[in-house]
């Protein structure tokens, strides 16, 4: 593969390049360079300032789009306040990939197996997008990036006193998820998200509602979950396996949450 690599130094230059070349944004490239994308023009975001910081405002932690999983793994405030996201980062790929791979790229590849995205959806996180001006959108509903929008950061609320993430892979590292699941709760309201169970990471709204009632009926919640997800048979796992493990993981997460 041969690419033309553009290295803009501002968001506006990047947008302009996107519009003039029809190229693809490049963060660490652990998805696009590995998947042999046919993009002829790559627009690197690397040299644009302001995309690499982690800031804790008290109500939310804002993570720059170019922050790597390695940085998330080592970040004290994420470890303390967003344990599910921290866990998802730790379980992503292996040390070499984590050293490069970015959270923006994890969202931007729109994979149903993006581990961090599952954690972010459960945590009710928002992305900040730039398309000439800044917008905010929930990670949950994001399916594409319109008009060359650039993800600049993710804003993750810290109001959940409980959050946990589970990943099922075929091996202990360098493993695409067969299934992943995250639960976040503030004591009353719970949010459940699952990956690899639909074409995109799924916010399981009905199950979440059942978990947010006073007396949780576990069997009912498991049934709701299995009717909500739409897994397929693929090389990583079967529908049967994904449904069975979804039920089991839900039970495990709920018991960890002390529900």
């Amino acid at each position: 593969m041969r690419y033309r690599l553009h290295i803009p130094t501002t968001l506006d230059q990047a947008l302009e390049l996107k519009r003039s070349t029809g190229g693809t944004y490049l963060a660490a490239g652990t998805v696009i360079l590995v998947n042999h994308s046919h993009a002829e023009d790559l627009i690197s975001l690397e040299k644009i300032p302001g995309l690499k910081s982690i800031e804790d405002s008290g109500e939310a932690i804002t993570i720059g789009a170019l922050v790597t999983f390695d940085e998330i793994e080592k970040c004290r405030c994420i470890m303390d306040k967003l344990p599910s996201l921290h866990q998802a980062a730790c379980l992503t790929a292996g040390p070499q990939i984590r050293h490069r791979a970015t959270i923006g790229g994890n969202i931007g590849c729109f994979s149903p197996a993006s581990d961090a995205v599952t954690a972010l959806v459960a945590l009710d996180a928002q992305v900040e997008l730039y398309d000439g001006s800044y917008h905010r959108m929930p990670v949950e509903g994001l399916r594409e990036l319109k008009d060359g929008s650039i993800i600049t950061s993710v804003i993750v609320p810290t109001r959940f006193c409980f959050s946990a993430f589970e990943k099922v892979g075929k091996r202990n590292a360098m493993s695409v998820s067969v299934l992943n699941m995250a639960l976040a709760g503030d004591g009353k309201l719970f949010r459940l998200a699952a990956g690899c169970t639909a074409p995109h990471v799924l916010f399981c709204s009905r199950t979440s509602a059942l978990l947010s009632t006073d007396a949780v009926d576990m069997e009912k919640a498991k049934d709701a979950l299995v009717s909500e997800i739409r897994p397929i048979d693929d090389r990583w796992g079967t529908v049967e396996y994904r449904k069975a493990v979804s039920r089991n993981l839900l039970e495990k997460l709920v018991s960890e949450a002390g529900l």
Partner: protein
Amino acid sequence: MHEIIGSSPMRLDGPDKVTGRAVYTADIHMEGTLEVALVRSPVAHAMLKGIQAPAIPDGCYLFTAKDLCGNFIPSIFSEQPVLASDHIRYQGEAVAIIAAPTREKADELASEVKLELEILRTVDSIEEAVKDDAPRLFENGNVCSVFHSDKGDVEGALKQSALVLEGSFETPVQIHGFMEPEAAFCCLDEKGRLAIVSATQNAYSDLYTAAVATGRQNEEITSRAATVGGGFGGKDGNTAQVYAAVVTHLTGKPARYVYTREENIRWGMKRHRSLTHARVGFSEDGHILAADCSMLLDTGAYALLGPSVLGLGLEHFTGAYFVPNVRLDGSLLYTNHAPASAMRGFGAPQAALAFESILNRAAKKLGINPLEIRRINAIHKGQEGPMGGVNEHETGLEEALEKFSRSDFYREMSENPEKGCGYGIAVGMMSSGLGKHIPDTCYVTIDRTDSGFTVSTSLVDIGQGSQTVLAQIAAKALGVAVDKIDMRMGRTDGNPDSGSTAASRSTFICGNAIIKAASEILGGAVHAQAAYAFPEASGEARHTYFAFMVQGAKVKVDPVTGKVDVLWMHSTTDTGRVINPTLFNGQVFGGVAMSLGMTLSEQVRYKDGISMENSLANYILPTAMDVPLLTSDFIDKPEPSGPYGAKGMAELPTVAVAPAVTAAVSDAVKGLEINRVPIDRMEILRAGGKA
């Protein structure tokens, strides 16, 4: 001087490898080298009606079967063409060779070649191959070869058995997973000879294959191994070599062909998928009275070494035990898959899963300790093997079992098992040597030099460390230090044909040849060449002697996901005298890790003859995070025919891993019996009531 045998001097190839100085085939470059790509069939089964080539620019080349002098790859049946010319039998089969100044250009041209194909129905599994209405890969049908052996009265003994256990077992297609993919380089040397340099286990076989395809005399070709990054059987025979050789022969230019990882996973050689049905009869006190085994192997589109794999697998079925009545039946079947051939263990791991699993279940049912049932059945020197023929060599299984019973592993397992964990034991046995009726001789030349001795042989060190072990043997035999020995391996030039680095034979056969040549040097010669032939097995037996391994496994099973975590693998080995304990452990640990892959996650699956796996992201090799605590020890029981008492052992550690792990899983999940690897997590969930 300290004792050379039984010590672990630094690997002779170590410094070059860790500093990056070692030259692998892909590192070789010469001005004007052509890069090779193959036009490969997009479908698994078809008749080739025509080839439409794009315009080939100057400096680029396209060759088809018409350009070959002989169109077959010499092997057991030699039915595999270098380039398919009429019948295409697997997806990815080579149809034409493209050579261009860059691989990119070669790939581009290859993708522009259009094949006119008449598509045929695909034979996608062993199960389909044996059906009456299955499409035929060859005129005579899909049975490539059969094996049968009968000793004693199996049915009678089964009737008299207090316990008869039966089961059907399955193992997957596995790849060798070597770090260096298949690769070959070729150029003309100053004498106009084709000079092949490759990632090979057998330099001479590359020479013979190139001779057929190019029509050259053997003397007009030389072949040598570059530094080889692992073989495990997958570089035993032609991979890339013949294509580079044909290009150089036809163009006069240097040529290089390096497989991509996708080519390696999809179209490199494979371990045979197996279906094994077994019945074993036991007396009340645990003696094995009879064993009946039928094994089906998927050889893919061509035989390669498949017939030998089938024979060895069946010969090893009853493993390390004396069994008076044994029937062995097997078929090697053609399917529209990439060909399987040799892979470390050569059929024995497939057989061991069946027999050792049944043995573990019998022990449980009869209330006998799993070590004890093995001890009372262990084969002794002087006893008859499964196909008749007396086992005349040292067998240390009993001692190995005894040593294993004193290990920390066994103490934990029997006295203090960790809560929530499961423990299992199995025994592996592995022959050494190519087997009866196959020429099995090694030639060694020793020359006295100013600084010491050069020791040469055509045998290749494919990364296992034979260079170091053989230098130790030479040093001992010549009474000098290891650094006085200059090992020169893997060249046809100046060396007679010593065959392949295969069948766990190098240390034994080459070590013996070295000792023979060294005795002439000690007698005063400055130059000596010696040949050593593998001793023949007696009677109907195929193999002469065996090495043994007691394998323990400790696992933890996650009831939520069905995932198996292997925590500890401990083994005790009988391989005669261990020449180099560090390299011995390297073989043990590597072999165990390799078979853990097959047990837990590795497999190539086919849909319409196309493999679902095509990269290391989806062909799931164990990572460092998956390989558990590995411990290993050995007994020291010298084999008199071995060089300083050594027996071959390189394949042995792959044999008993799967049955040890599945036994451990059964121990952790009561009531679960596993007959198929890689282990299906659904089986675990179901057994635990979690699915």
